[in-house]
């Protein structure tokens, strides 16, 4: 574009868009530090009009936020770790396992991919209850230790792995495990990283499932916990807003640090 007027218009437009996008978070942030009343019901709510830590103190008082963040962290580590492990092994088996009909196996996984979690929650919930695992962290990540989506992505990448290297490795006497760790994974690291990141984010963001299988505040994960905090804080808006800020800190850091991987993660899924 060559015209400067058009440039300015473009910038102005994008600036407004950026402000609108950022509005909710700014509102929450300013509200969380504004001395009571946290929300005044006037346009002043758009600006930081004061400072206090009171609401954060109140939030920590009303809900065991740190414990809930720990729970979420455990879920992320367990769920992501197990998911990556099972997906890598499954994709490996499908691609290099010399099955006669690998497509059939993959097809079966793809079918499960099309079944949304939301349709199976009730059945899974009843199972968890019968297993006596209700209100435990294990119940939160248990149904998700395998992911057809990850298997699919990894399978695509493994397929593209040069056969010459595989043959050379076999000739050198490398067994499957050695091949996997020494050759395959290092060379497909970007995809594995993406799969890990996507899986971790999903684990952290989980809401419906933890809502169903946990009940006590100390067993809850952070998403459900912050919603319960918001409800319980009731007219104490400041505490609710402060809770939102605290709970968002890990994800904000993650997005800042992992920008590139995230961007790639989305496009990889699209292109394939």
């Amino acid at each position, binding site marked *: 574009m060559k015209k400067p007027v058009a440039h300015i218009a473009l910038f102005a437009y994008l600036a407004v868009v950026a402000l609108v996008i950022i509005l909710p978070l700014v509102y929450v942030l300013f509200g969380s530090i504004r001395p009571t009343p946290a*929300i005044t019901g006037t346009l002043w709510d758009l600006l930081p009009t004061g400072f206090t830590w009171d609401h954060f103190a109140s939030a920590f008082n009303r809900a065991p936020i740190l414990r809930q963040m720990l729970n979420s962290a455990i879920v992320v580590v367990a769920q992501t770790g197990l998911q990556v492990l099972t997906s890598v092994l499954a994709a490996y088996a499908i691609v290099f396992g010399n099955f006669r009909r690998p497509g059939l196996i993959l097809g079966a996984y793809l079918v499960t991919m099309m079944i949304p979690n939301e349709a199976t929650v009730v059945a899974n919930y009843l199972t968890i209850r019968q297993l006596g695992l209700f209100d435990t962290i294990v119940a939160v990540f248990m149904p998700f230790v395998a992911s057809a989506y990850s298997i699919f992505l990894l399978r695509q990448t493994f397929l593209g792995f040069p056969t010459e290297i595989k043959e050379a490795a076999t000739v050198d006497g490398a067994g499957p495990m050695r091949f996997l760790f020494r050759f395959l994974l290092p060379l497909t690291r970007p995809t594995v990283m993406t799969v890990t990141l996507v899986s971790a984010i999903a684990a952290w963001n989980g809401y419906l499932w933890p809502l169903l299988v946990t009940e006590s505040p100390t067993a809850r994960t952070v998403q459900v916990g912050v919603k319960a905090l918001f409800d319980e804080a*009731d*007219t104490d808006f400041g505490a609710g807003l402060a809770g939102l800020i605290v709970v968002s800190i890990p994800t904000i850091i993650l997005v800042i640090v992992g920008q590139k991987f995230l961007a790639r993660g989305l496009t990889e899924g699209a292109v394939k």
Partner: protein
Amino acid sequence: MIRTRKGVAAGVTLAAVASLILAGCSGQPQPQETVAADGPVSIDFWYSVGGSSADALMKQVDAFNSSNSFNITINPIYQGDYTETAAKLTNAVQSGDTPVLLQGGDTFSAYLHDSGLATAPESVATFDGQAYNGDGVVAAAANYYTFDSKLWAVPLMVSQPAVFFDATKLQAAGLSGENPPKSIDELFDWADKIYAATGAAGLVFQQNEWWNEQFSALNNVVYCTPDNGLGSEAATAFDFVNDDLVNVWTHYQKSLQAGAIVNVGSDGVAAQNAFSVGQAAMLLASSASLGTTTAAAAFDINAFALPVATEGGGAVPGGSALWVLGEGHSDNEKAAAVEFARFMGSADVQRQIFEDSGYLPSNQEALDGLLTSETSQPKLALLKQLTATAKTSATGGCHNGAFGQSRADVRSAIQAIAGGADVQSSLENAQSKGTDQLADYNKRASK
């Protein structure tokens, strides 16, 4: 004169035997059974209040945990509002995960009583042999939780609705709290006047089925028949639609559309906020809102009682009660639960809860004391309203187990009315749906 030793001994024995016999015949609640407290007991307590009401409640829970002499620890768990808590309880029954202590919303009481989950406090064997005694509970509050002349739950946080207002704004329209309106319709007139005089809304309250019940009770209308379900028979039908009620909601609809009443949907928190930040001159809310609004408002808050238009009418004291859900729990846990119930119902605790939150004291001694010592105008107004509430079927409130769904239907009707729907048909629709659900519940409960 019995002066010999033998004579004295005989006399003492006689007296002792006599007093034992007399004690056995004194009609005290029995059984005076004892349970040995072996080791520390930790029990779950599900509660449903938030904000500063929760603060007030938790303060007492902490006090109990640190002061009780039976090594009991109460583990409080917030379960959402009364409706959500009720839903979770139903789910918990499935796997035997019910708590032994529950803060039950008033309308949940019929269900809790019918379900077999609850145990009347006085039937529970205690640690010290002293059975729970409900005599100290304020009569109007106990009314709600008494089935077959037994008190089934200890009223924990009693609330009655009242009108909170900013005196300055009322003045601007030539109105004063000294001369309150005589009916709900007149209250809405006041809202219109304030709006006309100041350009700011006169009243705010949320669209909640509770108001439908309150407006009816104020007119001495029995909400469900027979006898609001308080008699020997369970309720079988709803019967609240009448000309007065239709008029009131029609007026509401008009004032809402004009802007004299703020539309906050069904959001009670938003209603309190709108009042605290000064967007409406009056707030129609539960007495419990006094605590939260005082904390948030920059002006002095005053209150007056809800207008009783008909003799025998009054505001239904609701709120919540502490239920001991004995089913599936050990004697130890039940005894611990009753200790807690006793503590929470005591004069001192109830007085503190009132001071901290605006929930009315359910303990008669506390109420009497506060009537003489209380100096804050709004608090005094609330206390007086409770004391003055007539004890009739209408003010006893409707008791039935189908309240969950039928209340939701009334709420939808009110929301529809706020949106402009025809008042008469919306209410009649909700009424007949509710009656159907009652029939359904009665059928299911008798299986």
